[in-house]
């Protein structure tokens, strides 16, 4: 697999949000407006890039048995750095992301890529993988946020859209709208990809919930095929 394929797989074939269904909590929570979605995407991508590179560089040093705690500490360190950066340079973004900014630590995408990719591959490949996955995450967030903001508040990045602004469906920016839009988007992705079997590499191995989830939603996916 060459570099560009490696990058592109994160955006389309293995999109972390819409295909691998990782990191659902931030996806649902911050997709109420395009601005916070972009901020979240950028913050998570930065953390993912740093953690993937460092974990990949240390892959022969970290003992296998304690690798998960090591990864968590590394990721938490980078998240703290990003938190401080955002607080200092984009206080408005800090306000809108709120609790979800520190919660990047427990975002399955980051731990998942560390476990599935960075601990087996070279530093440069891991960086490309991180950028691809980060871009995929950001684009999926952007798509969801666009749908929710345009329908929900009749604006896009704060710019008012003539007719929709007066006839907004405010439920779209509330919790139920998040679940609904996400459900429909995944259904659309399923429809487009049906028969192409893109879910072959379903990322359960990297998800800490795999043990339980393996009997739940993951195996359900296998059945659904």
């Amino acid at each position, binding site marked *: 697999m060459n570099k560009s394929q490696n990058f592109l797989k994160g955006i389309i074939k293995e999109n972390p949000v819409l295909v691998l269904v990782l990191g659902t909590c931030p996806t649902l929570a911050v997709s109420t407006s395009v601005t916070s979605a972009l901020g979240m995407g950028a913050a998570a991508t930065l953390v993912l890039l740093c953690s993937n590179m460092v974990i990949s560089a240390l892959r022969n040093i970290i003992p296998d048995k304690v690798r998960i705690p090591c990864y968590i500490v590394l990721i938490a360190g980078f998240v703290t750095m990003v938190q401080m950066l955002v607080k200092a340079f984009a206080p408005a973004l800090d306000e809108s992301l709120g609790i979800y900014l520190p919660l990047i630590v*427990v975002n399955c995408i980051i731990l998942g890529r560390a476990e599935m990719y960075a601990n087996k591959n070279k530093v440069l490949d891991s960086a490309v993988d991180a950028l691809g996955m980060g871009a995929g995450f950001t684009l999926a967030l952007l798509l969801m946020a666009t749908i929710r903001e345009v329908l929900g508040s009749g604006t896009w990045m704060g710019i008012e859209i003539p007719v929709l602004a007066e006839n907004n469906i405010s439920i779209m920016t509330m919790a139920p709208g998040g679940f609904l839009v996400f459900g429909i988007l995944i259904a659309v992705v399923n429809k487009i990809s049906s028969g192409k079997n893109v879910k072959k590499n379903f990322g359960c191995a990297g998800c800490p919930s795999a043990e339980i989830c393996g009997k739940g939603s993951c195996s359900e996916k296998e059945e659904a095929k």
Partner: protein
Amino acid sequence: MTRFIIIMLSAVFINNYVLSRFLGICPFLGVSKKLNQAAGMSVAVIFVMLMATAVTWPIQTYLLDPNNLGYLQTIVFILVIAALVQLVEIILKRYIPSLHKSLGVYLPLITTNCAVLGVTILNIDEGYTFAESMVNSLGSGLGFFLAMVMFSGVRSRLEGADVPKAFQGLPITLVAASITSLSFLGFSGVIENLFA
């Protein structure tokens, strides 16, 4: 006392962790298929939330804040929670094997459950006292329990439903979650008016 009741009720109904704050979605979607699994997971979450708050609140207030180390919050909390979950698992395994059997499988995945880290950080952000934090954690845990148990009921109905192919599996589950979450919107405003 009224304040405690308000914190408790709003944590359970209005700011329900799963259905309005979107924390703990992974177990909500992954483990809610069977009622007994959903209940087991939720009890484990309530337990860990209370323990985690009891440990992290004093750490933040008496250790980090006086030493100007507030920025270490994220690292310290996640480590404390991870260590705590391990410790609880070891203690349960050794002394109460029956409880370990029913809760044990859920413990490892609680470490990276955003609801637990979320509740500990929110307690600090909201400026709650220790007692208020504990009440808030209990309420959040109960809210999680309520959402999980209700949703496992909804899902058992979905099993027999004739769903379009593209919607099978996760998409229809999310749509069902959307409707469940809609029902919780009805609670907003109720609690404030109750004590006004």
